[in-house]
């Protein structure tokens, strides 16, 4: 049986098609999950994709956090279900307090669409096991509210416990604290990443295939489990 990875579509989700394509490219079966439905359809892992859930009115991810599907996802994630939040998905995970900190308006105040290099700092999470720590990859950043902030204590704790997942390696594009591009929960199962690995899975339509590792990692992580 193949690995089934759920992709949640909230009203206003945009990169759900891209996330599904990436999951399929990696060899897993993408399973659409609808924001308004309860239950997770027995998936082995979940991707919260990019976009503007509920228009991102109020704050990014603030309204999506309360969607019916989240009522099942939050406890499942707490119990160890692997979840990858990309961009808006990362924002939702922070709003849901599954990850620490928050994502705020870019320091440059404008939306930024740009290829960026990021350095994988933690190669042991469910989503980054396929990368060596220190490995630099090229992915796509496209967000207006991507500046990661948290208080000093939280930041120090993240650093000390190896929970900084990835850092921007070619300049800091949005003013994120300590160049943080992504973080993980202590178990290494719930991961948030601001740039988009799912846009870097094919040289025809993106900057190469560096992003596929996230989706391949979850396959091997689940196979090993």
């Amino acid at each position, binding site marked *: 049986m193949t690995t089934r990875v759920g992709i949640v579509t909230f*009203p*206003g989700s*945009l*990169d759900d*098609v*891209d996330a599904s*394509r990436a999951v399929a490219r990696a060899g897993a079966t993408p399973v659409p999950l609808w924001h*308004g439905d309860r239950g997770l359809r027995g998936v082995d892992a979940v991707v919260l994709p*990019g*976009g*503007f859930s*509920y*228009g*991102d*009115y109020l704050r990014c991810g603030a309204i999506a956090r309360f969607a019916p599907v989240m009522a099942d996802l939050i406890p499942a994630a707490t119990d160890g279900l692997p979840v990858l939040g990309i961009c808006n998905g990362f924002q939702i995970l922070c709003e849901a307090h599954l990850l620490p900190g928050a994502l705020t308006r870019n320091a440059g105040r*404008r*939306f*930024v*669409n*740009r*290829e960026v290099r990021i350095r994988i700092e933690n190669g042991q999470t469910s989503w980054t096991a396929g990368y060596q720590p220190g490995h630099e990859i090229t992915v*796509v950043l*496209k967000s*207006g509210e991507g500046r990661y902030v948290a208080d000093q204590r939280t930041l120090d704790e993240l650093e000390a416990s190896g929970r900084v997942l990835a850092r921007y390696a070619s300049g800091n594009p949005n003013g994120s604290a300590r160049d943080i591009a992504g973080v993980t929960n202590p178990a290494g199962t719930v991961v948030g990443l601001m740039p*988009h690995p*799912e*846009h870097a899975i*094919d*040289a*025809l*339509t*993106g*900057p*190469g295939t560096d992003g596929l590792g996230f989706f391949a990692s979850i396959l091997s992580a689940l196979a090993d489990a």
Partner: protein
Amino acid sequence: MTASAAGEAGHGLVTAPDTVALAARTPDRAQPHAELGLTDAEYASVGGLLGRRPTDSELAIYSVMWSEHCSYKSSRVHLRQFAEKAPPTTSLLAGIGDNAGVVDIGQGYAVTFKIESHNHPSYVEPFQGAATGVGGIVRDILAMGARPVAVMDALRFGAVDAPDTRRVLPGVVGGISFYGNCLGLPNIGGELAFDPCYSGNPLVNALCVGVLRHQDLKLAAARGPGNQVVLLGSPTGPDGIGGASVLASASFGGGGETAKRPNVQVGDPFMEKLLIECCLELYAAGVVVAIQDLGAAGIACATSELAAAGGTGMAVTLDLVPLRDPSLGPAEILMSESQERMMAIVEPGALEKFAEICARWDVPATVIGEVTGTGRLIATWRGEVVVDIPPESAAEGPLYQRPLRRPAGQDGRLADDPAPLADAARSGPGLADRLRADLLALLGSPAGADKAWVTEQYDSYVRGNTVQATPHDAGVLRIDEETFLGIALATDGNGRFCLLDPYAGTQLALAEAYRNVAASGARPLAVTNCLNFGSPEDPEVMWQFAEAVRGLADGCLALGVPVTGGNVSFYNQTQDEAIQPTPVIGVLGVFADVRRRLASGFGAPGEQIMLLGTTAPEFGGSLWASVVHCHLGGRPPAVDLAAERRLAEVLAGAAEAGLLSAAHDLSDGGLGVALAECCLTGADGPARSGDGIGCTVDLGTDPFTALFSESPGRALVAVRDGQREAFARLCAEHGVPAQPIGFTGGDELAVAGAFSVPVGELAAARRGTLGELFG
């Protein structure tokens, strides 16, 4: 007209609801037709065709439907040429007159695309004006049954350092970014130009492209008496009431701005995203007979156009329209331009399924009436008939043959040839240094500068099918992952050339967009256009318009690409000062296999660079004359459309055969700017401006002309190793002059015997300009 007149007219319509019965009884009641933009003669003809005075609601309908913006009353007599001179084609599934043209691209797929202006609203409130401009064109595409897949934006502003530009540009770009990004449509290209003539009259032209299967095509015709009329999307509010006639068609002038300010429409891209997904699901479920977007003139326009196109009647109950503001009266409900709404015709038996799908997407949907066989459009409100008209009379509108006059200054402009400036530049000491300095000046000018400050604000990756976007010549999309069919799109306009000669200038814009598409390796297939001009009531403007349309129609015939649709924006002027005539032309091309597309930047060192086409000393309207000498005069470059066609054949053939690693068209700034762009753009990936690869070229005995002339019909290519002979043969076969001028490689742009510039310095010259101006 004044603020109070508009306000009172609007107010009067609410407080004194007027019925057909009352109108028949009170034939002499005074009505504010002039304030609503109808001439005395037009008002009289409304009375004539109704056989009585119109009710206030009917007056509202005719005033918006007969506005220049909706009725094309001044332009229609000219636009006919697009049909009369249309090249023979079998690929058009829908054309002019439909919401957007639809082109067959093979394997059961069709593409629909259209460009539209939102100029005046973007001046009044740049952010919302531009945002709702994107929203409007996207709904046009959606209404054809297509999934919108990308947007482009062609922008023109006043002088780059004018206070007006500083206010308008960031707002416009922010609005496009906000709406397009939130909608999940990649932005794959556009234009950014500056000229003082656009100060107070910015041009904001938005293009949307959509993809559908042939059988999914929807036409906006209400057929089948008994079918239900459903309004879906946002509730109706007081937004932009009278906007169609007042905001979109009246020119600005002394103090008029404040009068229009309350007419700002606010966009909700989130609702539009839901509307898109909801409509696509409705189409897939087969529960939509016909559909029309609501844009200018809202319900008035949708009901009359749907009924007129269907040759039927329609009866709607305005009380059923969900309102955001319960105080709206019938005329206002009809005129409201609230965004994010569509009108669908649905069979009664399909209503339940229809409602279910709408509920799943949280899209409100309400039955407001039905299709009838009466041939009349009837609207009731509070139990009384407030509208009873033949729908085609509103949908068709009057037709004007406006007087034309060749502008008095035209000969003077043509005579003001920049040749003496060019002669002086070519001779004298220090030529090499001057060439270098002029090239850097062009690259640092707003026209030549790096557009990343703007384009970085646009998502170009979403949906995962963007093969090329900014800064490549054309935006390139993959249609799907099975067929690898692809499309390319480019938009171009050149107000300077069009001012000097609107006929030739329009053909130059067409040729440039066509060449941009060809340079990406696609075969050009169809054309859309947005014609931005001053007041049609000025005979000199009207002459420019007539010449431009004639040029476009003749040009499309010569190139073999039909015009599939477009948009006219008149009254782009401040008092008597009209903008430069600015037709913006969009060309669509197709790839049988999009993996064969050509990048517009150098990808590998050691490849031979060839210049295709013929260079003559042509500087009239050029970027060089403009930037270095602030000069605008003389004749624009001579157009040779047969040569453009041959060049396109060579480029598409070479792409398909895999002979080239890069191709870039020559346009603004000529070869010098094109070489610099090739060095900086890099080979792959959308939105990428990599570190770059240099080149060394030999430009012969007249490097000045070689670098800065803007002769059309030219492109720069890098030939893959081992393919030089095959490529030379291909060029010879098509009679395209091909001159080897050098090789890629190194980290400088070097012109043998003249000068060199490190690639880093080229990048620096282009990079800072916009960022420094706009922060």
